[in-house]
């Protein structure tokens, strides 16, 4: 069953889709040529679901988040494709319309936990309340009131409202960032490595908070991370990104049992597991340069299951209703790859 189409087609009830990304491309212009950070990415996000985008550093996953929120640097070579939010193609909007209608109204973002994700000279309460003042023309006092309720929701003490970011711990700052992302009740929250700068205990707390919020508020998450272990707690579906492309999409349960793509499989094998005596196996070699990615399968130089067909670029194979993979091994009639 070879299907030449996006991951999103007709498989799910369209009513359920909150985000549908179709052939999204984001290429940066550099002195040495175009860097293909996001190169023809397709995936969907269902309402009240969490899709985790997994990939190693430099695979273009942060660029993907930036492309969805249109946070583009000045050196853009190509920015194309379709991004449907609740059925509306937001790529057609002008920058000003996008700022007014999409940013923080429909899509908000929790940045990587770091001191400088909050303005150091503005009180955190004001920063959390700011989107309400800008987008919903709310008065400052009622906006602060809502910010306070949101603080309560995410477990930040109310007196932190008048504090400055430098007076908060890393975990508290991240809670503030989550409160800020939820304040306008957006449809989608982009979480760009929300826990990677935190210690393990705080990571667990933040992940639990995110789970609670998802359950209670009904938000949809697009979680971008390299941390497979933490993401497995919250994921409903998984998208694996490699060298600017998405190579596998799957429901989370079956993915964590047994991924389809050799890269995803090796990625799982490289993670240490608690209580098991398996030695983590590293993936040898390096991801290809996104400046001039190789033709054919981009993973083939590191792939143990490589065969003659890999010199051609693999299409996306629909393995079953919820699983797609960009690998020749899953073309009908080819013996399945065994690790």
């Amino acid at each position, binding site marked *: 069953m070879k299907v030449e189409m996006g991951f999103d087609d007709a498989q799910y009830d369209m009513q359920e889709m909150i985000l549908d990304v179709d052939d999204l491309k984001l290429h940066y212009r550099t002195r040495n040529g175009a860097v293909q950070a996001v190169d023809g990415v397709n995936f969907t996000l269902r309402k009240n679901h969490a899709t985790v985008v997994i990939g190693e550093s430099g695979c273009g996953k942060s660029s993907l988040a930036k492309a969805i*929120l249109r*946070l583009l640097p000045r050196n853009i070579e190509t920015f194309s494709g379709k991004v449907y939010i609740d059925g509306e193609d937001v790529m057609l909007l002008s920058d000003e319309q996008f*700022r*007014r209608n*999409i*940013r*923080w*109204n429909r899509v*908000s*973002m929790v*940045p*990587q936990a*770091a001191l*400088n*994700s*909050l*303005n*150091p*000279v*503005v009180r955190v*309460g004001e920063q959390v309340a*700011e*989107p309400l003042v*800008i*987008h919903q023309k709310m008065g400052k*006092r*009622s906006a*602060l*009131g809502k910010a*306070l*309720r949101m603080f309560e929701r995410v477990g930040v003490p*109310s*007196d932190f*409202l*008048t*504090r*400055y970011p*430098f*007076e908060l711990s890393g975990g508290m700052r991240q809670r503030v960032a989550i409160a*800020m992302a939820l304040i306008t009740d957006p449809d989608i929250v982009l979480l760009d490595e929300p826990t990677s700068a935190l210690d393990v205990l705080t990571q667990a707390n933040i992940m639990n908070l995110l789970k609670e919020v998802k359950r209670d508020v009904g938000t949809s998450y697009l979680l971008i991370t390299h941390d497979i272990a933490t993401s497995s707690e919250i994921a409903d579906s998984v998208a694996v990104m490699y060298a600017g492309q998405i190579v596998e999409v799957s429901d989370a349960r079956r993915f964590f049992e047994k991924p389809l793509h050799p890269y995803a499989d090796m990625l799982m094998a490289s993670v240490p597991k608690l209580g098991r005596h398996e030695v983590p196996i590293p993936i040898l070699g390096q991801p290809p340069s996104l400046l001039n990615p190789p033709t054919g399968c981009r993973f083939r130089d590191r792939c143990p299951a490589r065969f003659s067909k890999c010199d051609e670029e693999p299409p996306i194979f629909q393995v079953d209703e919820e699983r797609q993979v960009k690998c020749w091994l899953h073309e009908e009639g080819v013996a399945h790859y065994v690790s």
Partner: protein
Amino acid sequence: MTDKSTILDYEKTIREEQRRAQRQSITKFLQYVAGKLLVLFFTIVIAVYLTVLIANMGGYVDEIKRGVIREQASIGVSLDPTLRDLPTDERLAYIDAQVKIQEERLGLDRPFFIRSFGYLSDALTLDLGFAENLTSDSGSKQVRLIILERLPSTLLLLGVSNFFLFIGSIFFGLRLARRHGGWTDKLIQAFVPTSAAPGWFYGIFLILLFPVLLKVLPFGGIVSAPPPEDPIAYALSVARHSILPVTAILLSSLFISIYTNRTFFMIFASENYVELAKAKGVPDRMIEQKYILRPTLPTIITNLAFTIIGLWTGSLFLEVVFSWPGTGELISRALGAFDTPIIIGTTVIYAYMLGITVFLLDFFYALVDPRIRVGEGSK
């Protein structure tokens, strides 16, 4: 509890929080101010004492004064017919007695080291004594009056040029940062090396160009002679006279300030919170003001502090070039006339002005940056 009463409760909490934070920051702030004042006071004391030592050549001026007194006494005796014919011993004894009286009158009988503290306290209390050669325009020989008469002109010149410098460097800095790499950016960059030369250097060329060649704008001075009676005409005349000196200062410091600010803005514009603000849909203007300018202000103000301090000392030559009747021009005249009290007096005033400048800047610093307002020890 209804939703409305919940909100009221929240508002109460917010208000209480804000009040608590205010109380806390006011005490912290006063502590900070007191500490700053103490440090600055010691700085001024040391600066003035050094001036006292240097202007007296570490006490050597006493020797010169003694020599002068002895010489005057000898001449006095030799010119007096009744004393001239006395025997040598008696004449010398008389001269010695005269010298002793004079030295006692001037306090030269006590060691310089002890008297230097007297000078220090006189200087610090602005009891600056009398000028030796120069007089004020109103005819007074009091050093304090002479300097106070000159001070407003210098403050006017520095105030106006610093105002333009501050506003101009921020405004153009933001513009360039917005379109870095553009042609205006490149043009300003090409002009940056102009700041290598001091203001008076450009002053000379400005005078050659405008009053001499083009016959517009006055050569120098602060107001036309005779000064206009009408206050508005007077102000206009002062404005006309300050165009060239202010331009000279701006030429020597504006471009580098713009360039420095532009670079700071660009560095701060790449911070994560600026990107997050964009993601939040904050309009561009607001991002510039709230997310780029506000966090950058402490850095900009530090920069401005250096510029102002540089201008305080650099205005000396500029005022000479433009015959601007300010303290700088006064110093240069006092130097020419060996008028030590004036030199010490102006230096003392300069030390105070620098102290005030630094204090005000620290004050602003604390106002714009909450991380400083809280002060050390709390984090």
